[in-house]
């Protein structure tokens, strides 16, 4: 059970290898990597900056992880989130879930990400050649999070 925020680049494969090495009797390992997209369909995004609420962000990720562990029989669980400056193509978020069977692992992974996106205090600032803007919340994310109420 690990929650980590880091300004350094995130290497998902190194993290997953370590995570997998600690597993014992898990039959299923699901991972999700959120990658920074260099365009949003309209603009070319040159850089993103992730702001967070020191203290509350970590506590909120731990609470989300705890909730997942109460809802599903998981063997282990990892959340790593970048903060600070992020360049296109770089991983922003890694979630890894190990369980006996795949169903629980998939459900828990989707749950963690849905709650993280709507309940953990992070804010994205995007920059392109015209300047910068704060990314607005997606109503789709609120809809997805409601699945778990």
């Amino acid at each position, binding site marked *: 059970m690990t929650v980590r925020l880091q300004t350094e680049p995130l290497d998902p494969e190194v993290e997953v290898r370590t995570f997998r090495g600690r597993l014992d009797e898990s039959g299923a390992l699901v991972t999700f990597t959120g990658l920074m997209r260099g365009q949003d369909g309209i603009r070319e995004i040159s850089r993103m900056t992730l702001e967070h609420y020191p203290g509350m962000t970590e506590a909120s990720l731990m609470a989300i992880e705890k909730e997942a562990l109460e809802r599903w029989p998981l063997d282990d669980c990892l959340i790593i989130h970048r903060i600070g400056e992020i360049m296109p193509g770089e991983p922003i978020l890694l979630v890894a879930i190990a369980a006996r069977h795949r169903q629980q692992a998939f459900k828990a992974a989707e749950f963690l990400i849905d709650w993280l996106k709507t309940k953990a205090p992070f804010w*994205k600032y995007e920059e392109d050649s015209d300047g910068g803007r704060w990314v607005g*919340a997606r109503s789709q994310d609120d809809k997805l999070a409601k699945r778990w109420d």
Partner: protein
Amino acid sequence: MQLLYFAWVRQSIGTGSEQKKLPENVTNVAGVIDWLRHEGEGYAEAFRDVDQIKFAVNQIFVSLEAPVKDSDEVAFFPPVTGG
């Protein structure tokens, strides 16, 4: 009261954190917002549309009616966009 601002709320107000004495007649989050609105143009701008703002008292998400006291940490920020 320890006040924290994030993202565009922080940018409007011009600082990420400040310490202010809570007025005696202010007892909940809605009251804090009404009070801060009169602290200057940046505050007025940040709190213009309360529907666009989320708030936490001592790092817990709360509603506008949540009680506050001078020793609390109160944070204001836009809807979250991590992940």
